[in-house]
């Protein structure tokens, strides 16, 4: 089994790019641009943690489709939730993820991402890449890219065959089932964000 360390990235391997990539570049162009221009800004070891969090939040809202991710990770609990609860969950998810991943980017400076190929599905593409750290084993890192506002947005990361959306969905679902309602999950998320 390869080192699990890169799994730490979960959904956030991207970062601040100036506007969505042009549609003509294709989904692989979008990922290439992100890896070349945005990733270094996020992994720069000299920036303070608060600034890193702010940058992530920007990237999350621009280069990821948080609405879709929220829907995917909640599954049927999303369909049953009232609009106010959905909105609350969406906000908590954003806070939870930006807090969680800011720290994880600190020791990823010099991460190299090479595009292996791309497959187009109906309405979305899978961009297959290999990520290599300075002295680590290569890790298979695949990006699910959907179209959003005429450009592209990331909706899932598959790290060594593990879909982060599916992993998160199972974890969240276990909490909803255990506590009996979506509120149980919202409480847990709020507690975690508060530290």
């Amino acid at each position, binding site marked *: 089994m390869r080192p699990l360390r890169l799994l730490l990235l979960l959904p956030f391997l991207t970062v601040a790019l100036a506007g969505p990539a042009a549609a003509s570049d294709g989904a692989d162009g979008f990922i290439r641009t992100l890896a070349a221009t945005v990733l270094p800004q996020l992994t720069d070891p000299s920036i303070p943690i608060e600034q890193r969090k702010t940058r992530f939040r920007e990237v999350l809202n621009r280069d990821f489709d948080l609405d879709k991710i929220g829907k995917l990770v909640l599954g049927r609990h999303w369909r049953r939730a009232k609009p106010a609860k959905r909105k609350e969950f969406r906000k908590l998810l954003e806070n939870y993820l930006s807090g969680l991943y800011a720290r994880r980017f600190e020791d990823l400076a010099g991460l190299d991402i090479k595009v292996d*190929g791309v497959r187009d599905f109906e309405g979305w593409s*899978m961009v297959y890449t290999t990520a290599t750290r300075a002295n680590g084993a290569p890790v298979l890192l695949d990006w699910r890219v959907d179209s959003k506002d005429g450009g592209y947005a990331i909706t899932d990361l598959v790290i060594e065959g593990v879909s982060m959306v599916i992993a998160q*969905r199972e974890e969240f679902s276990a909490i909803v089932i255990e506590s009996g309602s979506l509120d149980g999950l919202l409480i847990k998320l709020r507690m975690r964000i508060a530290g």
Partner: protein
Amino acid sequence: MDTSCQPLADERPALLGRLRIRAAICMVACLLGLAAALPSSAGEEPQPPSFNDPLEPLNRLVFAINEALDTIILRPAAIVYGTIVPDPVRRGVRNVVRHLTLPFTFVNDVAQGEWRRSGDTAQRFFINTMVGFAGLYDVAAKEGLPHRSTDFGSTLASWGVGDGPYLVLPIAGPSNVRDAAGLLVQGVADPVDIAFRRADMDHMPLIRSGVATIDFRHTNLEALDDFKANALDYYAFVRALYRQRRAFEVESSTEMYLKGGTDSEGEAYSYPPPRPDFTRGGQSLERRPAQ
């Protein structure tokens, strides 16, 4: 008539007796696995949403015990290992541990009908045994034969056995009925362990898996600490990770098209789609529409 005489077969070697017991356990486990993997009878109501974890309360208990053992024994041992053993030595240890898995990998390659792969495995074993000082140096990887692993759980999968309910095994950790059966078979059928036992080195199989475990724990120290600290429900997170990871390993080791499964909501899915093998054919960029 004297009926107190000893049974005739009392001289059966102890090892054979032990093996028979283990074989019996393993057969039961295999049958359990097969039964679990068989589709339920037609006309039945669809199962309610589940994680395919009917033993969840028991699993959570075993998981908690494993976590406690990890905290007080395995994790400290992994930290000490990383501190006192220099990096080149650790690399050598990892190479030897991997090298010793190759004979059983070869058996599985053959059982899965992976002829080309079984040839690669055999070649790798001979190169590293002869030139790599009994596996201490990974010469074969530099010759284009990187380490690949497979196991009997994957072999069962290639024969069409489904994974069955999730299981947390004492000490061994996350598993499922099929992979647990695979582990039991490995316990009796690994050629290297059999050779060790024949040579009266009965403790070696245990030492070998102990070293492999500490090495794995050390390699993943950061990641596992982080997961444990940040997961909202660590048990559920590990369960999701294990299931997907195994599906991926089984798929890539048997080159079987992953048809998907049932997700935590009880809905069928075929996501993520199988990853194309970009190492073959040399194509750097492939585009093809979805089926």
